[in-house]
C-alpha cells in the first residue's frame, strides 16, 4: 500500500494513465448469480480503466448491473454463491485472487464505498462518530480517543457544523444531506485510492446534491482519489465524470470520454437515455421520447443485442443481425477511446439526422452550420 505516500500533487497528475498501468483496471468482469430460476447474468464481460484523480460515471437503468459490478470491486460478492470471473487490478493487484483476509485489509483502506441511502447504510444504534472512528481503527493501530479526534477532523472536513458536538449524534439526528456527508467522511477517513459512490445524491434535493458534488470534487482534488460514480442522472455525469460507461443488461454498450458520449453518442440506448429526460432549457412543447418497453430480465436476456426489442433503429441494420448476433465493442467513428456496442454502420448520421433534431433542434441546427 504505497499509494498514500506516493500520491503526487493534483496539478502534476498526468491526464492520461502513467506508463501503461492504470490505477484500476477491470478486465472481462463477470458476475453471475445462480438462482432456482436460472442464472442471473448481472454483469457479463465488463472492462474499463480508471486513473488516479479521474472520475468514471456508470449510467444505466435499475437492474443493468451497475451496482453489482462496483460492489464486486469492493469484494462484497465474497461469501455468496455468486460466480465471479475476470480480473480487477487495483494498483497491479488482482482483487479477485487475493484471500478474504487480504481483501478485508484493503476494504475501506484502498477501496471505499458511499452508498445511496445513508440512513439504511449507517447503523442506527451507534453514534456517527463511533461508526466513522471504527473505519479508522480497523486499519490503524490507534486508541479510541485518537479515532474520535480523527472522526471529528473528517466531519469538519466534509462541512458538518460543530463537529465536536455532532460526533456524538445518532444517524437519525442528522438531516439527509448531513448523513451523506458523514458517509463521505467515513469513506474518505483512510484516504482510499478508489472511492465508489453508488447513487450518492439520488436521495437528496438539488441544492444539497450540488453541495455534495462540490464536496466530492474538492476532496478528489485534495486526496487525488479515483472515483466511480454510479448514477442514472446524466446531468450529474455531465458535470462530474471524465469518462462515461453506459450499461445495459449487464454489458457495457458505450464507453468513452464524457464529452463525446453526451454530445456524439453512437448507441441507440444512449440516445434513448438522453431523449427521455426533459431539459431545463429545452422546448416545452416537444414531447419526450421515451424508450419503449421495460428493461430486460437478466435471467433470460434477449438474443443478439440485448437492446433490440426496444430499439427504434432495428430496420437500419441489414438482415436479422441485431436479433441473432451480439455486437462487439468496436471503436466509434469519432475515434479515440470511444467504443460502442451496436450493429449500426453509420450511427453518427442517424444521430445527427434523426435523433438530435427531435430532442434538441437548436443543437442540431448549430451542428449543421459548420458542415454546410
Amino acid at each position, binding site marked *: 500500500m504505497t499509494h498514500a505516500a506516493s500520491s503526487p500533487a493534483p496539478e502534476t497528475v498526468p491526464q492520461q494513465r502513467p506508463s501503461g498501468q492504470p490505477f484500476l483496471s477491470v478486465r472481462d468482469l463477470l458476475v453471475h448469480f445462480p438462482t432456482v430460476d436460472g442464472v442471473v447474468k448481472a454483469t457479463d464481460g465488463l472492462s474499463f480503466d480508471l486513473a488516479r484523480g479521474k472520475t468514471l460515471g456508470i449510467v444505466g437503468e435499475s437492474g443493468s448491473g451497475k451496482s453489482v459490478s462496483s460492489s464486486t470491486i469492493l469484494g462484497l460478492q465474497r461469501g455468496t454463491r455468486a460466480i465471479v470471473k475476470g480480473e480487477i487490478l487495483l494498483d497491479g493487484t488482482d482483487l479477485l485472487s487475493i484471500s478474504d483476509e487480504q481483501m478485508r485489509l484493503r476494504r475501506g483502506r484502498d477501496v471505499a464505498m458511499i452508498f445511496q441511502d445513508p440512513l439504511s447504510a449507517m447503523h442506527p444504534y451507534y453514534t456517527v462518530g463511533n461508526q466513522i472512528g471504527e473505519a479508522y481503527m480497523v486499519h490503524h493501530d490507534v486508541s479510541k480517543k485518537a479515532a474520535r479526534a480523527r472522526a471529528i477532523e473528517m466531519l469538519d472536513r466534509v462541512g458538518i457544523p460543530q463537529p465536536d458536538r455532532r460526533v456524538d449524534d445518532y444517524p437519525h439526528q442528522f438531516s439527509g444531506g448531513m448523513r451523506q456527508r458523514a458517509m463521505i467522511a467515513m469513506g474518505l477517513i483512510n484516504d482510499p485510492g478508489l472511492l465508489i459512490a453508488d447513487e450518492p445524491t439520488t436521495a437528496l*434535493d*438539488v441544492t444539497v446534491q450540488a453541495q455534495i458534488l*462540490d464536496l466530492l470534487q474538492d476532496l478528489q482534488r485534495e486526496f487525488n482519489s479515483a472515483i466511480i460514480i454510479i448514477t442514472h442522472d446524466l446531468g450529474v455525469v455531465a458535470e462530474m465524470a471524465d469518462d462515461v460507461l453506459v450499461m445495459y443488461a449487464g454489458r457495457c454498450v458505450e464507453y468513452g470520454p464524457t464529452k463525446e458520449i453526451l454530445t456524439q453518442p453512437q448507441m441507440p440506448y444512449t440516445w434513448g437515455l438522453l431523449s427521455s429526460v426533459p431539459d431545463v432549457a429545452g422546448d416545452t412543447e416537444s414531447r419526450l421520447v421515451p424508450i419503449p418497453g421495460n428493461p430486460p430480465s437478466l435471467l433470460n436476456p434477449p438474443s443478439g443485442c440485448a437492446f433490440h426489442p426496444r430499439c427504434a433503429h432495428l430496420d437500419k441494420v441489414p438482415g436479422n443481425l441485431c436479433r441473432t448476433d451480439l455486437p462487439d465493442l468496436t471503436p466509434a467513428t469519432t475515434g479515440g477511446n470511444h467504443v460502442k456496442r451496436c450493429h449500426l454502420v453509420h450511427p453518427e448520421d442517424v444521430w445527427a439526422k434523426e435523433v438530435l433534431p427531435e430532442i434538441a433542434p437548436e443543437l442540431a441546427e448549430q451542428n449543421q452550420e459548420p458542415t454546410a
Partner: protein
Amino acid sequence: MSHAEPTPAAESAPGEQSSAAEEIIPDPGHVFEAHGQSEADFSAKPILTVDNLKMYFPVKSAGIIRRTIGHVQAVDGVSFEVRKGDSLGLVGESGCGKSTTGRLITRLYKPTAGSIAFEGTDISGYGSRQLLPLRRDIQMIFQDPATSLNPRHTVGSIIGAPLRIHQVVPSDKVLPRVQELLEVVGLNPEHYNRYPHEFSGGQRQRIGIARALTLQPKLLVADEPVSALDVSIQAQVINLLQDLQNEFGIAFLFIAHDLAVVRHFCPEVAVMYLGKIVEIADRDTIYGAPHHPYTQALLSAVPDVRQASIGGRRERIRLEGDVPSPINPPSGCRFRTRCPIARDICARVEPPLMQVGKRHKVACHFAGELGQHPATPVTTGVLGVDDEGHDVAGAQRRSDLLDHPGYQDTWLDLKTGQPVGS
C-alpha cells in the same frame, strides 16, 4: 354558491351517475355553467382556489402527559389557484411542505386554517361524510407505486374499488370498466387478475394512475409521480399523464422536486420554501427570469447534461447549510438564514407574496433578476415600513396588492415602485 350543487345531486341520483360514468370525458359544460363570469386574463376559471392555507402538526413532549410543546409549521399561509384543465407545479426541497399541501387539498389532512375552495365551495372544514362525494372529483397519484398499492389485492380489485365504493356502475359492469381503464393507461386488460408485485415499477405507477382516473376526477394531485421510476420509464409516464390531461381536461397539481420535469409538464410553477410559496409565475418567468434568490439558487443547482460539451462544473449559487427547522422558523423572511442578499429588514418583516408582473408573484424584499437585486427594499411602500423594516406612522399595508390567491389586473412595477395595470 351555485356550484355546490352538482356533487350532492349526483350522489342522490345513482342512475344519472352511472350514465355519466360510462362516457369517459366528463361533460365540460356543466363546470363552466357553474361559474358566471370568466376572468379577463385567463381563459379558464380556477377549479381550485387555496387561500392562506395552514397546517400545523403538534409536537408532543415525551412522558405520560404528552403536552403539546410546539408546532411543525409544515404549511404556513399558502395561496394559489389551479385553473380548469391546467397544471400547477409545486417544487421545493424535501420538508418544504409541498406534499402536505397536496394532502391538504385531497383532504387527507384537515387544515389548521385557511380555505380550500373547490369549484367555489370551501371544503376545508368538511367531515368525512361530506367529503365522500368530493373524492370523485379530487384524486391523488402517490410517489411510490410499490407501497401505495395493496399487495394482497389484485389489480382489478384495486382499480375497481372506487367504482364499488361510489356505486358508479352496477357490480357486473365493474370488470369491463377496469379493463377499459387498464387499456387507457397502456396496460394489458387481461392482467386485471394479477397482483401488484407481478408488475414492474413503471407499470405499477400506471396502475396507480388508472385508479386515480376511475372516477373521472376534475383535479388530480400528483405527488412525485415519476421520481421513483427509471429515466426511460419516467418519460413514458409523463407522456401518459399529458395525454390523459389533454383527453379528459383534468387539472393537475403536480408536486415534484425535479425542476426539469416540472418545467416540461406545468405551464405555471410555484416554488415553496419552509411552508411558504416564495415565488409563483408562469413557466417562462420562473425558469427564465426568476426574481427570488431561492429560486435562482435552486435553478443553478440543477446539473445540466449540456455541460458535457463545455466540461467541468457550472458556476452555481452555493446555498450553505440546511433548511431550518419548521418548528421554529426564522423570523421575517424564512430564507434569510441562507440568503446571499439578506439585510436587517428581512429579519424584521416577512416579505409578502406580491404580484410583480402579469403572471408573476414573488415574496422577497429585494426581488430582482439575478445580479440585479435592488439596493433598497421594494416592498416598503406596500407594507408601510421603512427600509430597515420599522413601521412608519400612518402608513398602511396595501391589501389591494397583496393577499389574493390569484393574479390581479394591477401589480407593483419593480422599476418604478408604483402599481401598474395591464
